[in-house]
């Protein structure tokens, strides 16, 4: 008997008798003999809890994590401080172990959390309708593409090259299924989306235009201008946004954005080597019945008490089947809980303070590094620079316990010497200066004594 089951020999005897079979094997009589495995799975035997812990801890020790180095790595996931109360609340069995709130009378906690989450996302994005979360950022972008197809019945999508490479890739992968072509709009010389080129790429066949705020290089985009250029022929404007800078940036909903999606990891979620986190999906009211995923709504019970339910379910797969607006079920409730707790922890003023801190540190860091900027205009949270000897910098910095950032060359061949540097509240001035020193080191070494 394993430690997670509880059938004693006596139980087994009684249970088989009640069923009317002689052995456990008889229960599988419907499986043809030819299909029975007839051997044990080729896996090790079960282990004690202590042995499993030690095995996993030994593997974890072979990863260099963010408490072991000073990391300027971002590119979609960021090293923010997660307050202790999030660990406490998320580890409560009442949040950790229930299923989706199919029985609202015994799920009011989870449903109210979803409602509060939707309110917070609506506030950040400036759009009136948010769902209760989707898987994560890039697939949320792809879901927005599907909404655009359902809404416009058009055949093409235009994506700025400032959109995260993973978002562009996920959009292409999903669009191959729902039958749409994805074309790219280039960046201009300052690392912002080229407004004129975007305008030229949009015609009557384009269902949606995708941009990102700040874009992948950290550039603060001129959303108003992109909106004007992108929406002329009736295409939807989809903006992928980082929620923390939205605390100081004009909400996408006020600049003509129809759908705002994004990666929620920055809101109180761990790095976790890429997931689980959550994606958010907010839109204008006219899209409320075309949204993907769960939406919580407020209502009353038979005694007139306030309560919350999953609502507008006639959009969803379990009701609408092949006519559903998406195949997604519930997605990331626990991660979205972390998101709304984090936003409540920061609060109305804290989010602004954090955003301003990031803004100042980003600009300070770009200047302190003293390198040629790929995006010299306004940036927040991240910026891109050209590094003459990138490999040498990495070697030197890694030896000194510093991870300088993300090499742009893999995704942007035009920036093969590009380095994307991310800043959070955890990256102090002292640490930024340390990176600057490492960058300057060869020049100093080469200089005469």
């Amino acid at each position: 008997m394993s430690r997670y089951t509880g059938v004693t020999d006596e139980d087994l005897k009684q249970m088989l008798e009640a069923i009317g079979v002689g052995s456990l094997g008889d229960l599988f009589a419907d499986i043809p003999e030819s299909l029975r495995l007839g051997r044990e799975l080729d896996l090790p035997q079960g282990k004690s809890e202590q042995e499993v812990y030690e095995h996993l801890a030994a593997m974890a020790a072979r990863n260099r994590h963010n408490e072991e180095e000073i990391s300027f790595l971002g590119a979609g996931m960021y090293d923010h401080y997660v307050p202790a109360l999030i660990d406490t609340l998320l580890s409560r069995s009442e949040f950790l172990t229930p299923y989706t709130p199919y029985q609202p009378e015994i799920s009011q906690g989870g449903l109210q959390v979803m409602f509060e989450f939707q309110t917070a996302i609506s506030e950040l994005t400036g759009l009136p309708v948010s769902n209760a979360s989707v898987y994560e950022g890039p697939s949320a972008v792809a879901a927005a593409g599907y909404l655009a197809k359902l809404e416009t019945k058009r055949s093409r999508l235009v994506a700025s090259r400032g959109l995260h490479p993973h978002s562009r890739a996920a959009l292409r992968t999903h669009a191959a299924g729902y039958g749409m072509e994805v074309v790219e709009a280039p960046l201009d010389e300052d690392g912002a989306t080229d407004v004129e080129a975007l305008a030229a790429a949009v015609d009557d066949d384009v269902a949606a235009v995708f941009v990102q705020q700040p874009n992948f290089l950290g550039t603060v985009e001129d959303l108003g201008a992109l909106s004007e250029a992108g929406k002329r022929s009736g295409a939807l404007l989809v903006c992928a946004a980082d929620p923390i800078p939205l605390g100081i940036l004009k909400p996408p909903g006020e600049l003509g954005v129809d759908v705002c999606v994004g990666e929620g990891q920055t809101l109180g979620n761990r790095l976790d080597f890429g997931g689980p986190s959550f994606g958010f999906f907010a839109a204008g009211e006219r899209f409320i019945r075309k949204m993907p995923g769960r939406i919580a709504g407020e209502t009353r019970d038979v005694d007139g008490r306030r309560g919350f339910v999953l609502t507008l379910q006639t959009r969803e797969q379990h009701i609408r089947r092949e006519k559903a607006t998406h195949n997604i079920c519930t997605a990331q409730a626990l991660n979205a809980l972390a998101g709304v707790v984090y936003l409540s922890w920061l609060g109305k003023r804290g989010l602004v303070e954090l955003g301003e801190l990031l803004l100042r540190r980003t600009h300070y860091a770009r200047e302190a590094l003293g390198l040629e900027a790929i995006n010299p205009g306004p940036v927040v949270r991240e910026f891109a620079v050209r590094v003459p000897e990138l490999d040498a910098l990495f070697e030197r910095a890694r030896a000194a316990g510093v991870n300088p950032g993300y090499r742009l060359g893999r995704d942007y061949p035009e920036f093969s010497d590009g380095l994307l540097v991310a800043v959070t509240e955890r990256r102090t001035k002292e640490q930024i200066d340390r990176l600057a020193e490492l960058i300057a080191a060869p020049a100093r070494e080469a200089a005469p004594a």
Partner: protein
Amino acid sequence: MTEDTLTIFELSKPGRRAFTAPSTDVPDVPVEELLPAGAIRERPAELPEISEPELVRHYTTLSSKNFHLDEGFYPLGSCTMKHNPKLHERVAALPGHARLHPLQDPEHAQGALELMWRLQGALGEIAGLPHVSLQPSAGSHGELAGLLLTRAYHEDRGEQRTKVLTPDTAHGTNPATVTMAGYEVVKVGTAPDGGVDLDDLREKAGEDVACLMLTNPNTLGLFDRNIEEIAQIVHDAGATLYYDGANLNAVMGVARPGDMGFDIVHFNLHKTFTQPHGGGGPGAGPIACSDRIEPFLPMPQVVRDGERFDLDFDRPRSIGKLRGFQGNFGVFVRSYAYICSLGADGLKEASEVAVLNANYLKAVMAEAGIAEYLPIAFDRLCMHEFVLSGQGAKDKLGIRTLDIAKRMLDHNVHPPTVYFPLLVDEALMIEPTETETKERLDHFAEVVRSILEEAQKDPEVARTAPHTTPVRRLDEAGAAKRPVVRWRPNGENPGDPERAQNAPASGSGAM
């Protein structure tokens, strides 16, 4: 409105805070000098202003209104609500896992890549298929990946196929996925024994069919005895056979989808491999496939070269990326720990006991006092779950399946999945899982019996249930008719004129 239903926004009071910003160490440059005027937010987002103690109390109070698996029996059919071992939270939280950046150089993420590689191997062995991608974010995402792989496979062979077959017992995600993947759904009927109607399948499996999506055991909890013939028909038509892994918990170590002839499988790590459900996520939906599908798997793939693990992006025929980074790694950690704990012997035992528990509960519920009201829909040995029909209770007692489910809430057990599968009238779909004891199963049967007895005397009690929960039956129709999907100050829905003026997109229109 009682105080404990106030949202966090209504608890807000200007001036309170839980967050203290780290001290400013860089020049205090005015925001206006760093951002163009048109990009600056004019008014702060209306987030709550609240102190840490009140923040903790609010969410702790909310949590107390959730029924949860650590509290009691949760026999939701098709959801596999098995115990979530507590070790898993500890290992997932190790800084080497939780604080690891997804773009860390593979050289400095060898432990994480090894864990993924080992999990791939274990899942492949359990499925009987050699290739695995862990990338999909959930079962629904895995299904979509499976059909995108199918499309890529056929297109690579120069074939344009337009239809995908799904049984009429299928989960709603199957047909929804078919549409998203650009195919047309064709339903296949169910035979009197609960399996796929072979004649109907033969008739529909033409050259235009790309795939048959199947769950086996199916959503009735029955293993399809004709699976070999089904695979033959599908493969003769040139289509792929897709395994919806929702019910894999019935057959681990007993039989393998790959050996049954399936080409592509998805796993629900949050079901079979016990990632906690989190009130509706996160999960993960890895896929396994045969050799002929492998070239199209998403990228990157985790590969091993001698002692070194790496991410392989050089996959020219790949369908591409389904999402950011490498997938829900935190979920992989938990599921891998689970597989290590159980091992080959324990995984098989888990499936055996899951099937034992389901058949035992079915037998107890076939006794007098229950069976005349809730007869079994297909009376044969079941696998890990079974389906009852509430037709008898409706006809003889005047209470519906919904009423029975709601009355269960007063007994502190979670109801089964109700009104699914669609072909069973007033369905109750019961999946006890292997981690429940005989006493728990007996107790559940007693609860059902007592609800039915009570209804013989006074059906109104069930019809108006629940009576002891934080709220009673909620007006779902009203919620959908006039949706209130976010809080607004002063309860105004539609938004106030000032808001509409300042923020046209956020304040317009009735909600």
